[in-house]
């Protein structure tokens, strides 16, 4: 791992005042997919930063290529926190992003995904895109960890570039798996509920 990663993680935690709660689960280096609600550009960075060091080194956030490759600083940061950049424009034409993610993580690393696809415009959490379903179908051994990110949208809302150093809270819940014979819509609804449930624990 490069030297900027711990510094970046430290700064992200300091700025967002993030505390992590592991609700009915434990941090582990096994292969996992953390899926969270998406409210701020900082989500991927802060969630990655708040994982314990050894786990953080093995975890790759999936982020939007158009945002994170816009200028040199963002490209550098994205490289430092090991982001897998997905082009949102060309998703279905040439290659499936799910295949790309699975190729990147191999048999050791974990993923951070935001199944809503884009950040919430209002408070309401949007329906999940199908990527999570296909991830689980292709790799049923991955533990799917629901994560609820609270208050980060106030630290850096959409369209702002100066963060306000409020305190945010990240809650990781117990893993879910794709049940045998469960159809796509039911699974995505269940996954969304798993994230929403963490709001009130």
């Amino acid at each position: 791992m490069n030297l900027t990663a711990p510094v970046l993680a430290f700064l992200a935690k300091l700025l967002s005042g993030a505390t992590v709660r592991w609700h009915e689960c434990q941090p582990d280096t096994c292969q996992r997919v953390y899926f969270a609600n998406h409210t701020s550009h900082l989500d991927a960075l802060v969630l990655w930063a708040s994982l314990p060091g050894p786990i953080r080194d093995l975890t790759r956030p999936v982020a939007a290529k158009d945002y994170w490759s816009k200028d040199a600083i963002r490209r550098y940061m994205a490289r430092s926190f090991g982001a897998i950049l997905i082009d949102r424009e060309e998703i279905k034409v040439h290659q499936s992003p799910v295949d790309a993610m699975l190729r990147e993580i191999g048999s050791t690393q974990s993923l951070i995904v935001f199944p809503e696809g884009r950040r919430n415009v209002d408070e309401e959490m949007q329906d999940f895109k199908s990527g999570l379903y296909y991830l689980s179908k292709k790799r049923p051994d991955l533990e799917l960890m629901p994560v609820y990110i609270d208050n980060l949208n106030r630290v850096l809302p959409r369209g702002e570039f100066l963060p306000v150093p409020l305190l945010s809270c990240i809650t990781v819940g117990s893993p879910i798996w794709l049940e045998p014979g469960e159809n796509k819509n039911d699974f995505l609804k269940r996954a969304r509920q798993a994230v929403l449930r963490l709001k009130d624990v």
Partner: protein
Amino acid sequence: MDWSSNGAAGLLGQIGPGYLQDQRTNILLGTVLIVLIVAVIVGRLLRRQPESTASPAVVHTFNNRVGAWWLMYAVLIAGFLVGYGMTVTLFGLVSFWALREFITMTPTRRGDHRILFWTFVIVTPAHYVFVGLGWYGLYTVLIPVYALLLIPARIAISGDPKRFLERVAKIQAGLLICVYALSHAPALLHLKLKPSTTSPPAVVAPVTPVAAGTANAATPVVGAVAETPTVGPARAAAPATQAQRFGSSAGLLFYFILIVQLNDVFQYAWGHLFGKNVIAPQINASRTWEGFIGGVLSTMLVGTLLCWATPFKLWEAACIAGIVAMMGFAGSMTMSGIKRDRGVKDYGTLVSGHAGVLDRIDSICFAAPVFFHIVRYFFAEIPAGG
């Protein structure tokens, strides 16, 4: 300002008021250190008790409190050792963190983002810089006048009218309580306390060599000044007063924090032991009239007993401790009100699961401005035009 009222002070008076004052502060600091060590031991012993004799919740609260006191003690000592700027900086960080908790707790809207940035990144540091510089005329108005006007104007420009007044009031309240009010505690250090009236300059003059000798070992700055006068009583007294000023205002700050914290303990203890009539059940179910009255009286007693560490006479110390105790109580009640409104138990719960910084400093926030102004008007030299 009655230095020779007790025996120890009279003896130490031979050395000079400056050194003497530091000596008293040191005695106070040492006493509190011993009490804190005892508190840690008691906490350890209580934790080993079976649940039947000591309720785990109370023991947990007690140990948390002791932890917070150690932190406060360390912050104050670090400030005293490094200097005035350090104390102000550390208080500034506490304010910043408390404001973080306050604003995190109160919902704001997208339109408030820019003014929140201003509040955190510009207003709060600027205020503490002015406190550090001792520009009383500016730091007393920066937040209560200019920031309070800026906040609604900036929110209005952002164009979101929904719950306008409420949002403005939240940010203003946070800034006033967490930053403005709290900053009066470190601002105490900048006050130039009136020199002692009962130790005439003539007493100081003959012992100047001694004072210079001791001061040289302790603080080179004071020593350098003290060596210069060619024993003119009035001029010899001046450097001694100089030394006394910092020492005593640092001691005052410590005295203030100490009695506010003791007041919290006394109110809790009296309420726990004898509390029957709850003052406002919906605001705070554990604050009772018995706890309030018992707490204020106990604080007055301890505040009076500790008056040797301050420039206050006995009756002055009693009155001031009483006022500080009542303001501390008012602060706790107010913050309880805000917490109940937001439906949380502690400011820290959203974040870390235990009481936050704001829960620990609420009483200090309310008592600091009053204590500061009492000291400033009655015990300090107010510069011309100040």
